[in-house]
């Protein structure tokens, strides 16, 4: 916990990706390509580092948001990306 006070890159990257996700669902074309690229780049890096086990040549991601509806917690998938060909760490 002490170490994470001075070095917590995964958490801060996750916060940045949450910002990218929020930009994507705003349907703003100016941000769409940039945000998609940021998310895909990190998924590919996680695959290359073995953090995600992949089995194909393409990837597709979805953005699920949870919110409260009275006393119920509901989950909505608000964005599904196009199929994107992996550029690194891809299965042969």
């Amino acid at each position: 916990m002490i170490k994470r006070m001075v070095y917590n890159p995964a958490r801060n990257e996750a916060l940045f990706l949450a910002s990218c996700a929020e930009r994507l669902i705003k349907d703003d074309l100016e941000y769409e390509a940039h945000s998609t690229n940021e998310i895909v780049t990190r998924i590919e890096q996680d695959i290359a580092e073995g953090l995600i086990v992949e089995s194909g040549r393409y990837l597709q991601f979805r953005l699920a948001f949870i919110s409260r509806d009275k006393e119920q917690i509901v989950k909505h998938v608000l964005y599904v990306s196009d199929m994107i060909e992996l550029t690194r760490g891809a299965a042969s």
Partner: protein
Amino acid sequence: MNIDEALRLTEIMLGLAFIQQSIEHLHRPNNEKILFIPRIVLSLLLVIGFQVSWALIALVALSLVILKRFHGPYNGGSDRMGLLILVCLTLAHLAPNHMWQEIAFGYLAVQLILSYLISGWVKIVNPAWRSGRALRDVFAFTTYPVSENLRGFAEQPKLLFVMSWCVIAFELLFPLSLLNTNTLYFALIIAATFHLANAFLFGLNRFFWIWLCAYPSILWFQGNYV
């Protein structure tokens, strides 16, 4: 604390905070290193006090490039606060006379006060915060590993109701702490503890370090103008 001491302390703290942030960007094999290695070098100049004015100007320019790279702040509020401190410090260094130097640095102190006051106002006008539900949702929805262990807090509505009102009251009453040096020190210790708890529980480490960097400005401001 006089303004020269407060400015120097802010430079050192900001330099260290920027180094901390920049090192976090070096773990990925992508093009972020080209932006953040120079930022580390410039921040080191700030810490050791060598060519400070030029280092500040270069850091402002680099910050604009970083903003463009990420299409906005990488880390939301903490990056905005970092940029605010950096710009105020730079303007204080480039100020043509003492009066403008004090205006630039005083602006930072006022913004720090507003950062707490407006946060409190936003919460008190929000029914979810007044009922404690907002804080319950924070614990219920979090995906941060440390706070996942604390998810049980979401089932403690009375406790979270009290905690919510403590946070709201503290933030709204923060400006009153400037009436006295001792109350200001006390309020800043409480505020820093709040940021520290957020860093431990929710991984918001950058907020803790960067908000501390603005504290010398408010200590100087209170000592000279209140």
